């Protein structure tokens, strides 16, 4: 009975230097870890090695989606990226549309871009808020989460749901713009522009924030490309790449916007770039609401499937009810892939269809998973107190990485 039971974690912890290092297990239940475990080897206060251990909230989204009708995957992929639902929805629907060969009408394209940009702002505010509480500022945390609310209300006004909207369907969107949406949106945008000045005063230009973030967690341009980092983190390292610009989807080819990039790639740049992207999103929402064309919000292929009651409903309430086609959808055999620039970076979708009721292979890669190398490569050599700075600044969301 004296046998010592080794578990795999003990074996991993065996280190040639014996007791030289303090091994800290940050998480999975720790205020600064989220749903993951970060194993840190410390030499005094200096981080020697970081091993992020993910998978605590793996939700088998691919497995589940391969065993359901095509349309039922929409709520599943949404629930993986809760601060960023619209983009997951959009990426999946774009892939299915490629398989089906449907092209949505222009108005639906604009509405997709509109709801995506609203969602991008809420996602960035979420990231800034988490960054705030990681550095110890409860004010920014409360502000950012409070200021998400007006945008979430906008989403509710447009889609009927606050977070998990399931708004985008193959061939179009589910609801048209409601009355009074444009005025309401303008009020919210003006509010946010006022608030961004407050954020600059208390957060971006705060000397303590600058002392904590400048030159912390720097990732050079070449390293960022080599590691496959995506999204705002990639652009903060100085790489001009945005899927919205380079492979436009939805209405982005018609919208005039800039892709902000930074030079240094440190934590402060990653904070600044999110603020800049919020400004760009505000600009885009204004354009979309001004330029949005009239017309149908679903493709003709879907519209023709509607029965008379549904058509009446569509004309009166501007609402698309699901025709039977949606549940019996059998996209022709083939493969399709799509990319979408989500709030945290690029989502990649790959689906293989055999012409069956269910997808044959369902594969997607989320931005947080691709930003994971940041931990192992950037945190080494910094102090323990820099780990939350790096974690917060890359806006890492464990459920999104685990899928």
């Amino acid at each position, binding site marked *: 009975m004296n046998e010592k039971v080794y578990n795999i974690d003990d074996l991993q912890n065996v280190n040639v230097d014996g007791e030289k290092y303090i091994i800290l297990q940050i998480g999975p239940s720790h205020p600064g870890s989220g749903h993951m475990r970060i194993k840190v080897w410390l030499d005094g206060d200096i981080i020697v090695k970081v091993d992020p251990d993910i998978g605590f909230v793996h939700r088998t989204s691919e497995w589940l989606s391969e065993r359901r009708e095509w349309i039922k995957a929409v709520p599943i992929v949404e629930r993986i990226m809760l601060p960023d639902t619209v983009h997951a929805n959009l990426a999946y629907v774009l892939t299915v549309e490629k398989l089906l060969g449907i092209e949505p009408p222009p108005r639906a394209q604009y509405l997709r871009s509109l709801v995506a940009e609203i969602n991008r702002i809420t996602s960035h505010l979420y990231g800034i808020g988490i960054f705030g509480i990681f*550095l110890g500022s*409860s*004010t920014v945390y*409360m502000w950012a989460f*409070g200021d998400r609310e007006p945008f979430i209300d906008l989403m509710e006004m447009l889609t009927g749901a606050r977070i998990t909207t399931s708004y985008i369907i193959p061939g179009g969107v589910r609801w048209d713009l409601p009355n009074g949406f444009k005025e309401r949106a303008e009020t919210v945008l003006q509010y946010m522009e006022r608030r961004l000045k407050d954020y600059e005063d208390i957060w971006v230009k*705060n000397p303590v924030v600058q002392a904590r973030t400048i030159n912390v967690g720097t990732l050079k341009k070449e390293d960022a490309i080599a590691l496959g980092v995506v999204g705002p983190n990639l652009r903060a390292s100085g790489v001009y790449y945005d899927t919205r610009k380079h492979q436009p989807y939805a209405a982005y080819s018609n919208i005039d916007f800039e892709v902000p990039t930074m030079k240094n790639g440190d934590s402060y740049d990653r904070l600044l770039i999110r603020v800049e992207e919020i400004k760009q999103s505000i600009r885009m929402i204004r354009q979309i609401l001004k330029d949005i064309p009239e017309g149908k919000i679903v493709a003709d292929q879907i519209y023709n499937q509607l029965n008379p009651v549904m058509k009446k409903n569509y004309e009166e309430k501007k609402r698309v009810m699901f025709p039977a086609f949606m549940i019996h959808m059998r996209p022709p055999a083939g493969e399709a892939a799509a990319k979408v620039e989500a709030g945290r970076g690029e989502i990649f979708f790959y689906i293989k269809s055999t012409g069956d009721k269910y997808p044959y292979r369902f594969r997607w890669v989320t931005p947080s998973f691709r930003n994971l190398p940041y931990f192992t490569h950037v945190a080494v050599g910094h*102090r323990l107190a820099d*780990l939350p700075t790096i974690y917060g600044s890359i806006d890492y969301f464990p459920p999104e990485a685990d899928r």
Partner: protein
Amino acid sequence: MGIIPIPLIIWLIEDLLYLIIFPGLVTILVIVIVIIWLERKIAAKVQMRFGPLWVSKKIGGALQSLADLLRYSFQEVIIPEKADKLAFILAPGLMFAFATIALIFIPVGPYYSVLFPSYYTILFSLALIIITPIFAITVGWASDNKFSFIGALREGFLLISYEVPFLLSVVSMIIIFRTYDYISAVQSQLSFLPGIILNPLAALTMLIVMIRTTGRFPFDITEADSELVLGLYTEYSALFFGVGMATPYVELYNFSLIFSLLFLGGWWPFTLNVMNPIYGLILPGIIVVIKAFIVMAILVFLRAVYPRYRLDQAVRSGWSYVLLLSVLSVILSVGEVVFLR
């Protein structure tokens, strides 16, 4: 009881009343409860929230801290198996005790010299205040937790780097007032100018050290929750946790009293010098406590503005800017004493 007149009883027990009621334990308890409530309310106001409101809604949730204290009192005490049990249990209590005992040597009125005659109150109070962080380090050591241990190490680093400036800033005031006694220090301020005008550098140093020593933002480094869970108190529960959490506020109260005595003119504008419990202790005492409370309120407001510094940044600034500031304040004091008087 009829034989002994009531004033005589009061005279006999008035030093006990001083320790227990004003400005002793009861006042400390009230001040700590109110300042915690105020801290949460100020932060809530800045952050577009209501703050504590569930307990005693009509008075703005002011009894929330009292409710928390009661809750701590009835919680189960959990002591980790591998903890050094004696140190684990004793350290928070001793820390609180020493923080409170320091109050004996902080007079809030001229009558105090009758109760405890002493010419070295500044020295005694500083000695007692400097003892408390040692127990904080004991807390971190005793709980056998890596996070507590790192918290204790951080406390030690900061303790050493900020105590020298603290002592130098007080020394510069001792040089100006040419006394080791708070009462004479206040009286020389009443006859001339308050200390904050005589030596603003010392006042600034003292403020920075107060923020640091009591763990206010932006020096909330030993309890950094995103790094160390709760720092020193990670393994603590129940009343020990409550006492540990209340101690920084008691220290803040002590420091604020010292600050208002040395820099804000003590019981100015109450200049009546009567050796009487009411006119010599309670009325000036209320003025001093109000001044201290305002200082505390300003310091707890910082939570709403600043995030926290890193350990190395705080230690570096302690050994460079703050130390330089305190040395300059001593030079300023010497200069004033030599050239002005």
